[in-house]
């Protein structure tokens, strides 16, 4: 009977494709929007992820994320270095600045000052050049967002001179970094150099990056640092999560994406529900005849479930494939750089598809089960 059910469905090409389209569209919308949402809010943690060597981030108690920070006095560095279990501690500066390009364009940039001696604070990989270029005077390393934003014509940025807050800066390398949430251009330079670029205030140390001694857990170290210095200390993972939470709590993004995902679900229910109902209505005589002949309600249920299952399988597959193509297609765009589909998202959309099909299938099935076999004689 399952074979008959499948043939009944596929034989009505218009409705079959309508159902598959409904599920595929719904899956695409849910999967793609959730993927973008997750990747976008993870950008809130990009500042933390880009500095892979720091176990602990130490900051002023009011600082919240890598980008929302309150400068500390430089003595904070010494305080942290004095805590037992700290293997190393380096200064880290993050501030905003304005850049005038050689073409006269204005660009708001984020300046990151990394430790002069160890260069801790730079992204792990370079797209062009080496990290050693920072030893040259006025050197800055631009991130790849900056490369596409400020050098759209494709010319090489290496050697390009910039006017950074009224100071001379020369680009000597391109970092392969995870873009920030706002996709702002980022310039990396030495800490001492960054102090020159960023307008002077008494306190300019944004963070102290800390490495834990062998055998001391980051959690234990954060506890000790907070106790002994009165500063706020977060492990790398905690601070990354702080960045994500900040975006969730302070932007309308979760609501907007949530609405889109909900719309995807509703559109799925509407298209699939309507088409399924039409399909069942068109075949109600056949179902009635089957019931009269002696097909049990249990078998009818299995038939409708098989029809829903087939539609779900094909539609879901197409929807997920569509998302994969979307992410793959835009992978060259810096806005979508590093985007991936977390394994949980296809499971969530699968659950949504299951609910859509269960709901619409149940509604359609009700009509079939309510149909009296005797109706075929009327």
């Amino acid at each position, binding site marked *: *009977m399952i*074979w*008959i059910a499948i*043939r*009944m469905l*596929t*034989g*009505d090409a218009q409705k079959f494709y309508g159902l598959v389209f409904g599920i595929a569209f719904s899956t695409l919308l849910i999967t793609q929007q959730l993927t973008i949402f997750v990747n976008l809010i993870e950008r809130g943690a990009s500042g933390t992820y880009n500095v892979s060597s720091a176990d602990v981030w130490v900051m002023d108690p009011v600082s919240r994320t890598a980008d929302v920070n309150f400068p500390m006095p430089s003595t904070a560095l010494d305080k942290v270095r004095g805590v037992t279990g700290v293997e190393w501690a380096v200064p880290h500066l993050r501030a905003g600045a304005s850049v005038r390009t050689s073409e006269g364009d204005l660009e708001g940039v984020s300046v990151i000052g990394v430790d002069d001696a160890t260069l801790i604070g730079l992204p792990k990989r370079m797209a062009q050049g080496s990290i050693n270029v920072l030893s040259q005077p006025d050197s800055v390393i631009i991130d790849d967002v900056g490369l596409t934003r400020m050098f759209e014509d494709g010319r090489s940025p290496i050697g390009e001179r910039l006017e950074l807050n009224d100071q001379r800066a020369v680009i000597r390398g391109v970092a392969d970094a995870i873009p920030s949430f706002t996709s702002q251009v980022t310039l990396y330079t030495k800490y001492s150099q960054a102090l020159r670029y960023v307008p002077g205030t008494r306190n300019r140390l944004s963070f102290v990056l800390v490495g834990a001694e062998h055998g001391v857990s980051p959690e234990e170290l954060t506890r000790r640092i907070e106790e002994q210095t009165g500063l706020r200390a977060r492990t790398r993972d905690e601070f990354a999560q702080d960045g994500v939470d900040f975006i969730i709590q302070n932007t309308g993004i979760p609501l907007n994406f949530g609405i889109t995902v909900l719309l995807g679900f509703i559109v799925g229910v509407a298209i699939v529900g309507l088409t399924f109902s039409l399909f069942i209505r068109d*075949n109600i*005589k*056949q179902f*009635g*005849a*089957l*019931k*009269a*002949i*002696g*097909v*049990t309600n249990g*078998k009818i249920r299995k038939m409708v479930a098989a029809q829903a299952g087939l539609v779900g399988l094909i539609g879901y597959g197409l929807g997920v494939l569509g998302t994969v193509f979307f992410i793959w297609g835009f992978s060259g765009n810096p806005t979508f750089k590093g985007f991936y589909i977390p394994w949980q998202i296809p499971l969530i959309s699968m659950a949504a598809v299951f609910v859509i099909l269960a709901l619409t299938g149940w509604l359609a099935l009700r009509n079939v089960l309510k149909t*009296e*076999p*005797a109706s*075929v*004689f*009327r």
Partner: protein
Amino acid sequence: MAETDIQAATTAQAAICSRGVTRDFKAGQQTITVLHGIDVDIRAGELTYVVGESGSGKTTLISIMCGILWPTAGEVKVFGTDIYDLSDTELVEFRLNNIGFIFQQYNLIPSIDAANNAAVPLIAQGMDRLEAREKAVAMLEKLNIGNQAGKLPSQLSGGQQQRVAIARALVHEPRLVVCDEPTAALDAASGRKVMDLLREVAVAEDRACIIVTHDNRVFDLADRILVLEDGRITHDGSEMPEGH
């Protein structure tokens, strides 16, 4: 009627034995009685017509006789089985194994070919699809449309579709065949052919065929004609009464 009477009637070649069959329908606040205590036996080996005006209750009567509509009161035995004493599942299985249906609109599944349509009861019984199809093709050949086995219903004429419906009704060798206006959509010649065919394949000593029809062109082919008027049998004979 007493239980012993029903049993006696059932054993005396009665395929269907109905006693006191009444059926009411609700229409808003009103209750309409469509059948008024029908007592009738349908004998095996006969082609029995149920004839009557629209609304006389003939479709309701055969629906009750073949176990797809519950009577409000009364008893129906089909080949000795009190079908309304069975559970829902048992009744569905009983229909599947003992009754063949031919519907006025044929109700063939449009997206599967003639052979698979004819094989539906066997597939529903759990037979392997290919084996069921083979048997269905043999039945279609018996009905002289074996060469149409691979065609979809939409590619067949009305008469051919009706033969596919007959094949579907007979493929699982039921003991009772119930037909609802089988000639209504056919011209006179095709209608007579279908009736001849039904007599040939559906009527046997241990089988019964009951047909609801309006079609006076085929009345002469019946072994027995029951005339229903306002939910009561007003005539039971081998020919139509005068004036009808």
